[in-house]
Protein backbone atom coordinates (compact mmCIF):
# COMPACT_ATOMS: atom_id res chain seq x y z
CA UNK A 1 0.00 0.00 0.00
CA UNK A 2 2.76 2.38 1.02
CA UNK A 3 4.70 1.56 -2.12
CA UNK A 4 1.67 2.24 -4.33
CA UNK A 5 1.05 5.52 -2.54
CA UNK A 6 4.68 6.56 -2.94
CA UNK A 7 4.58 5.63 -6.63
CA UNK A 8 1.38 7.63 -7.14
CA UNK A 9 2.86 10.64 -5.41
CA UNK A 10 6.06 10.44 -7.46
CA UNK A 11 4.08 10.23 -10.70
CA UNK A 12 1.87 13.11 -9.62
CA UNK A 13 4.96 15.19 -8.86
CA UNK A 14 6.41 14.42 -12.31
CA UNK A 15 3.15 15.32 -14.04
CA UNK A 16 3.01 18.57 -12.08
CA UNK A 17 6.60 19.30 -13.09
CA UNK A 18 5.70 18.77 -16.76
CA UNK A 19 2.73 21.13 -16.35
CA UNK A 20 5.02 23.68 -14.73
CA UNK A 21 7.42 23.45 -17.69
CA UNK A 22 4.51 23.87 -20.11
CA UNK A 23 3.35 26.95 -18.21
CA UNK A 24 6.88 28.40 -18.03
CA UNK A 25 7.37 28.15 -21.79
CA UNK A 26 3.71 28.64 -22.81
CA UNK A 27 4.46 31.84 -24.69
CA UNK A 28 7.27 31.36 -27.24
CA UNK A 29 9.77 34.16 -26.81
CA UNK A 30 10.70 34.24 -30.50
CA UNK A 31 8.62 36.74 -32.47
CA UNK A 32 6.28 34.68 -34.70
CA UNK A 33 6.93 36.56 -37.93
CA UNK A 34 5.48 35.17 -41.14
CA UNK A 35 8.89 33.65 -42.02
CA UNK A 36 9.05 31.80 -38.68
CA UNK A 37 5.44 30.63 -38.98
CA UNK A 38 6.07 29.43 -42.54
CA UNK A 39 9.20 27.53 -41.46
CA UNK A 40 7.34 25.84 -38.60
CA UNK A 41 4.44 24.91 -40.89
CA UNK A 42 6.79 23.32 -43.43
CA UNK A 43 8.51 21.49 -40.57
CA UNK A 44 5.18 20.09 -39.33
CA UNK A 45 4.25 18.91 -42.84
CA UNK A 46 7.71 17.36 -43.28
CA UNK A 47 7.47 15.47 -40.00
CA UNK A 48 3.91 14.32 -40.72
CA UNK A 49 5.08 12.93 -44.09
CA UNK A 50 8.01 11.18 -42.45
CA UNK A 51 5.88 9.69 -39.68
CA UNK A 52 3.39 8.59 -42.37
CA UNK A 53 6.17 6.80 -44.25
CA UNK A 54 7.36 5.14 -41.03
CA UNK A 55 3.80 4.02 -40.29
CA UNK A 56 3.39 2.69 -43.85
CA UNK A 57 6.68 0.75 -43.55
CA UNK A 58 5.68 -0.64 -40.16
CA UNK A 59 2.29 -1.82 -41.45
CA UNK A 60 3.77 -3.44 -44.58
CA UNK A 61 6.42 -5.23 -42.48
CA UNK A 62 3.78 -6.46 -40.00
CA UNK A 63 1.48 -7.61 -42.84
CA UNK A 64 4.22 -9.80 -44.39
Amino acid at each position, binding site marked *: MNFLYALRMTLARQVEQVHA*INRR*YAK*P*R*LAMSSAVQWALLVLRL*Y*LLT*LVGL*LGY*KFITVVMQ
Partner: protein
Amino acid sequence: MSWIARLYYRLQRWFKAVRLYLVLAGPGVVVMIADNDAGGITTYAATGAKYEYYLIWFLVILGPVAYYIQEMTVRLGAVTKRGHAEAIFDGFGPFWGWFSLLDLLLVDWLTLVTEFIGMTSALAIFGVPPWLTVVGVCLLMAIMVLNGRYWTWEKLALAFCALNLIYIPGAFLVHPQVSDVLAHGLIPNFPGGFNGELFFFLMANIGTTIAPWMLFFQQSSVVDKGLKEKDIAWGKFDTLVGAFFTVLVAVFIVIVTGTVLNGQDINDAAQASTKLMETHHYAGVFMAIGLFDAGLLGAICISLASSWAFGEVFGWAHSLNNKIREAPLFYVSYFFALITAGLVVLIPRAPLVLITLFVQVVAVTLLPAALVFLILLLNDKDTMGDRTNSLWDNIVNGSIVAIIIALSTLYGVSTLFPTLFN
Protein backbone atom coordinates in the same frame (compact mmCIF):
# COMPACT_ATOMS: atom_id res chain seq x y z
CA MET B 1 68.96 44.46 -31.42
CA SER B 2 65.57 45.86 -32.29
CA TRP B 3 64.69 42.91 -34.52
CA ILE B 4 65.56 40.49 -31.69
CA ALA B 5 63.30 42.45 -29.37
CA ARG B 6 60.51 42.41 -31.97
CA LEU B 7 60.93 38.65 -32.50
CA TYR B 8 60.89 38.05 -28.74
CA TYR B 9 57.75 40.17 -28.39
CA ARG B 10 56.01 38.30 -31.23
CA LEU B 11 56.98 34.89 -29.86
CA GLN B 12 55.71 35.88 -26.44
CA ARG B 13 52.39 36.97 -27.93
CA TRP B 14 52.18 33.73 -29.90
CA PHE B 15 52.87 31.58 -26.84
CA LYS B 16 50.27 33.56 -24.90
CA ALA B 17 47.72 32.90 -27.64
CA VAL B 18 48.55 29.18 -27.67
CA ARG B 19 48.21 29.03 -23.88
CA LEU B 20 44.86 30.81 -24.06
CA TYR B 21 43.67 28.43 -26.77
CA LEU B 22 44.69 25.41 -24.69
CA VAL B 23 42.57 26.77 -21.84
CA LEU B 24 39.55 27.43 -24.06
CA ALA B 25 39.93 24.41 -26.36
CA GLY B 26 37.62 21.48 -25.82
CA PRO B 27 33.99 21.54 -26.92
CA GLY B 28 34.77 22.01 -30.63
CA VAL B 29 37.55 19.43 -30.85
CA VAL B 30 35.73 16.87 -28.69
CA VAL B 31 32.41 17.10 -30.57
CA MET B 32 34.06 17.02 -33.98
CA ILE B 33 36.34 14.07 -33.29
CA ALA B 34 33.55 12.23 -31.45
CA ASP B 35 31.60 12.72 -34.66
CA ASN B 36 33.85 9.99 -36.07
CA ASP B 37 32.03 7.50 -33.84
CA ALA B 38 31.67 3.73 -34.32
CA GLY B 39 29.04 4.20 -37.05
CA GLY B 40 31.22 6.80 -38.76
CA ILE B 41 34.27 4.52 -38.78
CA THR B 42 32.19 1.76 -40.42
CA THR B 43 30.93 4.21 -43.05
CA TYR B 44 34.43 5.46 -43.90
CA ALA B 45 35.88 1.92 -43.95
CA ALA B 46 33.11 0.73 -46.29
CA THR B 47 33.52 3.85 -48.49
CA GLY B 48 37.26 3.21 -48.94
CA ALA B 49 36.77 -0.51 -49.62
CA LYS B 50 34.05 0.20 -52.18
CA TYR B 51 35.39 3.29 -53.98
CA GLU B 52 39.12 3.24 -53.16
CA TYR B 53 40.30 6.89 -52.84
CA TYR B 54 37.76 8.33 -55.27
CA LEU B 55 35.45 9.89 -52.66
CA ILE B 56 38.12 11.62 -50.54
CA TRP B 57 37.22 14.96 -52.15
CA PHE B 58 33.68 14.57 -50.82
CA LEU B 59 34.95 14.04 -47.25
CA VAL B 60 37.12 17.15 -47.59
CA ILE B 61 34.03 19.19 -48.53
CA LEU B 62 32.17 17.88 -45.48
CA GLY B 63 34.74 19.50 -43.14
CA PRO B 64 33.66 23.11 -43.77
CA VAL B 65 30.02 22.00 -43.82
CA ALA B 66 30.34 20.57 -40.30
CA TYR B 67 32.23 23.67 -39.16
CA TYR B 68 29.59 26.15 -40.40
CA ILE B 69 26.79 24.24 -38.65
CA GLN B 70 28.61 23.72 -35.36
CA GLU B 71 30.01 27.25 -35.01
CA MET B 72 26.42 28.49 -34.72
CA THR B 73 26.01 26.46 -31.51
CA VAL B 74 29.14 28.16 -30.10
CA ARG B 75 27.64 31.61 -30.66
CA LEU B 76 24.20 30.61 -29.37
CA GLY B 77 25.61 28.94 -26.24
CA ALA B 78 28.07 31.72 -25.40
CA VAL B 79 25.47 34.49 -25.85
CA THR B 80 22.40 32.89 -24.25
CA LYS B 81 24.21 30.71 -21.66
CA ARG B 82 21.58 28.11 -22.44
CA GLY B 83 21.74 24.65 -23.93
CA HIS B 84 20.00 23.85 -27.21
CA ALA B 85 17.05 22.02 -25.62
CA GLU B 86 16.23 24.92 -23.31
CA ALA B 87 16.69 27.40 -26.18
CA ILE B 88 14.10 25.49 -28.25
CA PHE B 89 11.59 25.40 -25.35
CA ASP B 90 12.13 29.11 -24.75
CA GLY B 91 12.03 30.16 -28.38
CA PHE B 92 9.31 27.93 -29.82
CA GLY B 93 7.16 26.78 -26.89
CA PRO B 94 6.39 23.41 -25.27
CA PHE B 95 5.20 21.52 -28.40
CA TRP B 96 8.51 21.85 -30.27
CA GLY B 97 10.42 21.65 -27.00
CA TRP B 98 9.00 18.27 -26.00
CA PHE B 99 9.26 16.99 -29.56
CA SER B 100 12.98 17.84 -29.67
CA LEU B 101 13.73 16.59 -26.17
CA LEU B 102 11.99 13.21 -26.53
CA ASP B 103 13.32 12.70 -30.05
CA LEU B 104 16.82 13.52 -28.79
CA LEU B 105 16.41 11.05 -25.95
CA LEU B 106 15.37 8.28 -28.35
CA VAL B 107 18.02 8.94 -31.00
CA ASP B 108 20.77 9.36 -28.40
CA TRP B 109 19.90 6.12 -26.67
CA LEU B 110 19.77 4.20 -29.95
CA THR B 111 23.07 5.74 -31.05
CA LEU B 112 24.55 4.80 -27.68
CA VAL B 113 23.58 1.19 -28.39
CA THR B 114 25.45 1.37 -31.73
CA GLU B 115 28.53 2.74 -29.90
CA PHE B 116 28.45 -0.29 -27.59
CA ILE B 117 28.07 -2.57 -30.62
CA GLY B 118 31.23 -0.97 -32.08
CA MET B 119 33.20 -1.19 -28.82
CA THR B 120 32.27 -4.81 -28.04
CA SER B 121 33.00 -5.97 -31.60
CA ALA B 122 36.36 -4.12 -31.57
CA LEU B 123 37.55 -5.67 -28.31
CA ALA B 124 36.14 -9.10 -29.29
CA ILE B 125 38.93 -9.15 -31.91
CA PHE B 126 41.40 -9.24 -28.99
CA GLY B 127 39.39 -11.92 -27.19
CA VAL B 128 37.68 -9.61 -24.67
CA PRO B 129 34.14 -10.86 -23.91
CA PRO B 130 31.33 -8.31 -24.52
CA TRP B 131 30.20 -8.26 -20.87
CA LEU B 132 33.69 -7.25 -19.77
CA THR B 133 33.79 -4.47 -22.37
CA VAL B 134 30.41 -3.12 -21.23
CA VAL B 135 31.38 -3.22 -17.52
CA GLY B 136 34.81 -1.70 -18.23
CA VAL B 137 33.37 1.13 -20.34
CA CYS B 138 30.70 1.96 -17.75
CA LEU B 139 33.35 2.06 -15.00
CA LEU B 140 35.68 4.22 -17.09
CA MET B 141 32.92 6.67 -17.89
CA ALA B 142 31.87 6.75 -14.23
CA ILE B 143 35.43 7.67 -13.23
CA MET B 144 35.45 10.41 -15.88
CA VAL B 145 32.30 12.18 -14.67
CA LEU B 146 32.34 11.49 -10.94
CA ASN B 147 35.44 13.55 -10.21
CA GLY B 148 33.12 16.58 -10.15
CA ARG B 149 35.06 18.83 -12.52
CA TYR B 150 34.26 19.72 -16.11
CA TRP B 151 37.94 20.51 -16.72
CA THR B 152 39.12 16.98 -15.80
CA TRP B 153 36.38 15.33 -17.87
CA GLU B 154 37.27 17.50 -20.87
CA LYS B 155 41.01 16.81 -20.70
CA LEU B 156 40.38 13.05 -20.45
CA ALA B 157 38.03 13.29 -23.44
CA LEU B 158 40.76 15.18 -25.35
CA ALA B 159 43.20 12.34 -24.58
CA PHE B 160 40.76 9.89 -26.19
CA CYS B 161 40.48 12.32 -29.13
CA ALA B 162 44.26 12.11 -29.54
CA LEU B 163 44.01 8.30 -29.64
CA ASN B 164 41.55 8.66 -32.54
CA LEU B 165 44.52 9.82 -34.66
CA ILE B 166 45.83 6.22 -34.58
CA TYR B 167 44.44 5.80 -38.11
CA ILE B 168 47.15 8.08 -39.45
CA PRO B 169 50.14 5.81 -38.62
CA GLY B 170 47.85 2.91 -39.59
CA ALA B 171 47.63 4.33 -43.11
CA PHE B 172 51.43 4.59 -43.40
CA LEU B 173 51.73 0.91 -42.45
CA VAL B 174 49.85 -0.16 -45.60
CA HIS B 175 52.14 1.91 -47.89
CA PRO B 176 49.61 3.66 -50.13
CA GLN B 177 50.84 5.31 -53.33
CA VAL B 178 50.69 9.01 -52.44
CA SER B 179 50.47 9.96 -56.11
CA ASP B 180 47.39 7.71 -56.51
CA VAL B 181 45.76 9.17 -53.40
CA LEU B 182 46.26 12.71 -54.69
CA ALA B 183 45.35 11.97 -58.32
CA HIS B 184 42.26 9.88 -57.56
CA GLY B 185 41.11 11.45 -54.34
CA LEU B 186 41.25 15.19 -54.76
CA ILE B 187 39.52 15.60 -58.13
CA PRO B 188 35.74 15.61 -57.72
CA ASN B 189 34.29 12.63 -59.57
CA PHE B 190 31.62 9.96 -59.26
CA PRO B 191 33.31 6.56 -59.63
CA GLY B 192 31.23 4.27 -61.87
CA GLY B 193 28.75 7.06 -62.62
CA PHE B 194 26.07 8.53 -60.39
CA ASN B 195 23.90 5.60 -59.34
CA GLY B 196 21.75 4.53 -56.39
CA GLU B 197 24.56 2.79 -54.56
CA LEU B 198 26.96 5.74 -54.83
CA PHE B 199 24.18 8.08 -53.73
CA PHE B 200 23.59 5.89 -50.66
CA PHE B 201 27.30 6.09 -49.75
CA LEU B 202 27.38 9.88 -50.19
CA MET B 203 24.33 10.26 -47.97
CA ALA B 204 25.75 7.87 -45.37
CA ASN B 205 28.89 10.03 -45.17
CA ILE B 206 26.79 13.16 -44.70
CA GLY B 207 24.72 11.34 -42.07
CA THR B 208 27.82 10.52 -40.06
CA THR B 209 29.22 14.06 -40.35
CA ILE B 210 26.20 16.02 -39.09
CA ALA B 211 24.21 14.39 -36.31
CA PRO B 212 21.51 15.95 -34.10
CA TRP B 213 23.26 15.12 -30.82
CA MET B 214 26.25 17.22 -31.92
CA LEU B 215 24.22 20.45 -31.87
CA PHE B 216 22.83 19.73 -28.39
CA PHE B 217 26.19 18.51 -27.06
CA GLN B 218 28.35 21.40 -28.23
CA GLN B 219 25.97 24.12 -27.08
CA SER B 220 25.57 22.54 -23.62
CA SER B 221 29.31 21.96 -23.46
CA VAL B 222 30.02 25.62 -24.26
CA VAL B 223 27.65 26.63 -21.45
CA ASP B 224 29.08 24.13 -18.93
CA LYS B 225 32.62 25.23 -19.76
CA GLY B 226 31.54 28.82 -19.17
CA LEU B 227 32.62 30.32 -22.50
CA LYS B 228 31.72 34.01 -22.72
CA GLU B 229 30.94 36.21 -25.70
CA LYS B 230 34.53 37.41 -25.81
CA ASP B 231 35.65 33.76 -26.19
CA ILE B 232 33.50 33.11 -29.28
CA ALA B 233 36.43 33.62 -31.68
CA TRP B 234 38.42 30.95 -29.81
CA GLY B 235 35.38 28.68 -29.67
CA LYS B 236 35.02 28.98 -33.44
CA PHE B 237 38.74 28.30 -33.93
CA ASP B 238 38.41 25.26 -31.68
CA THR B 239 35.55 24.01 -33.88
CA LEU B 240 37.67 24.63 -36.99
CA VAL B 241 40.55 22.60 -35.51
CA GLY B 242 38.10 19.82 -34.68
CA ALA B 243 36.64 19.89 -38.21
CA PHE B 244 40.15 19.61 -39.66
CA PHE B 245 40.98 16.55 -37.55
CA THR B 246 37.64 14.85 -38.15
CA VAL B 247 38.21 15.06 -41.92
CA LEU B 248 41.84 14.02 -41.54
CA VAL B 249 40.88 10.86 -39.63
CA ALA B 250 38.10 10.05 -42.12
CA VAL B 251 40.48 10.46 -45.07
CA PHE B 252 43.13 8.21 -43.50
CA ILE B 253 40.55 5.47 -42.81
CA VAL B 254 39.51 5.62 -46.47
CA ILE B 255 43.19 5.42 -47.46
CA VAL B 256 43.72 2.29 -45.31
CA THR B 257 40.71 0.34 -46.60
CA GLY B 258 41.06 1.78 -50.11
CA THR B 259 44.62 0.47 -50.30
CA VAL B 260 44.15 -2.99 -48.76
CA LEU B 261 40.47 -3.91 -49.06
CA ASN B 262 39.69 -2.28 -52.42
CA GLY B 263 36.75 -3.98 -54.15
CA GLN B 264 35.49 -5.83 -51.06
CA ASP B 265 32.12 -5.34 -49.40
CA ILE B 266 32.57 -4.25 -45.80
CA ASN B 267 29.60 -4.49 -43.42
CA ASP B 268 31.27 -3.07 -40.33
CA ALA B 269 34.59 -1.69 -39.13
CA ALA B 270 35.34 -4.77 -36.99
CA GLN B 271 35.12 -6.92 -40.13
CA ALA B 272 37.49 -4.47 -41.86
CA SER B 273 39.95 -4.81 -38.94
CA THR B 274 39.89 -8.62 -39.12
CA LYS B 275 40.43 -8.59 -42.89
CA LEU B 276 43.25 -6.06 -42.55
CA MET B 277 44.97 -8.22 -39.93
CA GLU B 278 45.25 -11.06 -42.45
CA THR B 279 47.73 -9.07 -44.55
CA HIS B 280 48.79 -6.06 -42.43
CA HIS B 281 48.58 -7.17 -38.81
CA TYR B 282 49.33 -3.86 -37.10
CA ALA B 283 47.14 -1.82 -39.47
CA GLY B 284 44.27 -4.14 -38.48
CA VAL B 285 45.13 -3.79 -34.79
CA PHE B 286 45.19 0.01 -35.13
CA MET B 287 41.82 -0.10 -36.90
CA ALA B 288 40.32 -2.15 -34.03
CA ILE B 289 41.81 0.13 -31.34
CA GLY B 290 40.53 3.16 -33.27
CA LEU B 291 37.06 1.61 -33.52
CA PHE B 292 36.93 1.05 -29.76
CA ASP B 293 38.14 4.58 -29.12
CA ALA B 294 35.59 6.00 -31.57
CA GLY B 295 32.76 4.13 -29.85
CA LEU B 296 33.99 5.30 -26.46
CA LEU B 297 34.22 8.95 -27.55
CA GLY B 298 30.74 8.74 -29.07
CA ALA B 299 29.36 7.22 -25.87
CA ILE B 300 31.07 9.87 -23.71
CA CYS B 301 29.46 12.71 -25.65
CA ILE B 302 26.06 11.24 -26.50
CA SER B 303 25.18 10.19 -22.96
CA LEU B 304 26.06 13.67 -21.73
CA ALA B 305 24.05 15.40 -24.49
CA SER B 306 20.81 13.80 -23.20
CA SER B 307 21.55 14.41 -19.51
CA TRP B 308 22.43 18.05 -20.12
CA ALA B 309 19.26 18.55 -22.18
CA PHE B 310 17.01 17.04 -19.49
CA GLY B 311 18.74 18.97 -16.74
CA GLU B 312 18.25 22.26 -18.63
CA VAL B 313 14.54 21.72 -19.20
CA PHE B 314 13.61 20.19 -15.82
CA GLY B 315 15.72 22.69 -13.94
CA TRP B 316 17.95 20.07 -12.28
CA ALA B 317 21.53 20.93 -11.42
CA HIS B 318 23.24 19.70 -14.58
CA SER B 319 26.91 20.57 -14.61
CA LEU B 320 29.91 18.29 -14.58
CA ASN B 321 31.23 20.72 -11.97
CA ASN B 322 28.56 19.40 -9.58
CA LYS B 323 29.24 16.47 -7.29
CA ILE B 324 26.84 13.52 -7.47
CA ARG B 325 24.96 14.61 -4.33
CA GLU B 326 24.53 18.11 -5.79
CA ALA B 327 23.11 16.88 -9.12
CA PRO B 328 21.72 13.38 -8.44
CA LEU B 329 19.12 13.36 -11.23
CA PHE B 330 21.67 14.54 -13.81
CA TYR B 331 23.97 11.63 -12.98
CA VAL B 332 21.09 9.12 -12.62
CA SER B 333 19.87 9.94 -16.15
CA TYR B 334 23.46 9.73 -17.44
CA PHE B 335 24.07 6.26 -15.95
CA PHE B 336 20.58 5.00 -16.77
CA ALA B 337 21.10 5.69 -20.49
CA LEU B 338 24.62 4.27 -20.39
CA ILE B 339 23.86 1.03 -18.54
CA THR B 340 20.62 0.20 -20.39
CA ALA B 341 22.30 0.76 -23.77
CA GLY B 342 25.17 -1.49 -22.72
CA LEU B 343 22.78 -4.20 -21.54
CA VAL B 344 20.95 -4.26 -24.89
CA VAL B 345 24.17 -5.36 -26.62
CA LEU B 346 24.45 -8.27 -24.16
CA ILE B 347 20.96 -9.60 -24.91
CA PRO B 348 21.33 -12.79 -26.99
CA ARG B 349 19.88 -12.39 -30.50
CA ALA B 350 19.05 -8.70 -29.95
CA PRO B 351 18.12 -7.06 -33.28
CA LEU B 352 21.32 -5.00 -33.45
CA VAL B 353 21.27 -4.51 -37.23
CA LEU B 354 17.68 -3.27 -37.03
CA ILE B 355 18.67 -0.85 -34.24
CA THR B 356 21.54 0.50 -36.36
CA LEU B 357 19.18 1.13 -39.28
CA PHE B 358 16.53 2.63 -37.00
CA VAL B 359 19.05 5.16 -35.66
CA GLN B 360 19.45 6.62 -39.15
CA VAL B 361 15.70 6.94 -39.64
CA VAL B 362 14.98 8.50 -36.24
CA ALA B 363 17.92 10.90 -36.60
CA VAL B 364 16.33 12.16 -39.81
CA THR B 365 13.21 13.19 -37.90
CA LEU B 366 15.22 15.28 -35.43
CA LEU B 367 18.02 16.72 -37.57
CA PRO B 368 15.89 19.01 -39.83
CA ALA B 369 13.96 20.35 -36.85
CA ALA B 370 17.13 21.03 -34.85
CA LEU B 371 18.81 22.73 -37.84
CA VAL B 372 15.78 24.91 -38.65
CA PHE B 373 15.51 25.96 -34.99
CA LEU B 374 19.22 26.75 -34.94
CA ILE B 375 18.95 29.09 -37.95
CA LEU B 376 15.83 30.80 -36.56
CA LEU B 377 17.39 31.27 -33.11
CA LEU B 378 20.56 32.71 -34.66
CA ASN B 379 18.39 35.28 -36.44
CA ASP B 380 16.74 36.51 -33.24
CA LYS B 381 18.29 39.95 -32.90
CA ASP B 382 16.74 40.57 -29.47
CA THR B 383 18.75 37.69 -28.01
CA MET B 384 21.81 37.49 -30.22
CA GLY B 385 22.52 41.22 -30.57
CA ASP B 386 25.58 41.75 -32.76
CA ARG B 387 26.16 37.97 -32.87
CA THR B 388 23.05 37.54 -35.04
CA ASN B 389 23.57 35.73 -38.34
CA SER B 390 24.69 38.13 -41.07
CA LEU B 391 23.22 37.92 -44.56
CA TRP B 392 26.29 35.95 -45.65
CA ASP B 393 25.90 33.57 -42.66
CA ASN B 394 22.28 33.00 -43.63
CA ILE B 395 23.12 32.35 -47.29
CA VAL B 396 25.91 29.87 -46.43
CA ASN B 397 24.25 28.19 -43.45
CA GLY B 398 20.77 28.27 -45.02
CA SER B 399 22.08 26.55 -48.18
CA ILE B 400 23.97 23.94 -46.14
CA VAL B 401 20.93 23.26 -43.96
CA ALA B 402 18.64 22.93 -47.02
CA ILE B 403 21.02 20.48 -48.72
CA ILE B 404 21.57 18.45 -45.53
CA ILE B 405 17.81 18.22 -44.90
CA ALA B 406 17.16 17.08 -48.48
CA LEU B 407 19.95 14.50 -48.52
CA SER B 408 19.45 13.18 -44.99
CA THR B 409 15.73 12.77 -45.76
CA LEU B 410 16.57 10.78 -48.88
CA TYR B 411 19.00 8.75 -46.77
CA GLY B 412 16.33 8.01 -44.17
CA VAL B 413 13.77 7.15 -46.84
CA SER B 414 16.24 4.93 -48.71
CA THR B 415 16.96 3.13 -45.41
CA LEU B 416 13.24 2.47 -45.05
CA PHE B 417 12.80 1.51 -48.71
CA PRO B 418 16.20 0.15 -49.85
CA THR B 419 15.17 -0.54 -53.46
CA LEU B 420 13.79 2.95 -54.06
CA PHE B 421 16.88 4.38 -55.79
CA ASN B 422 18.04 1.23 -57.59
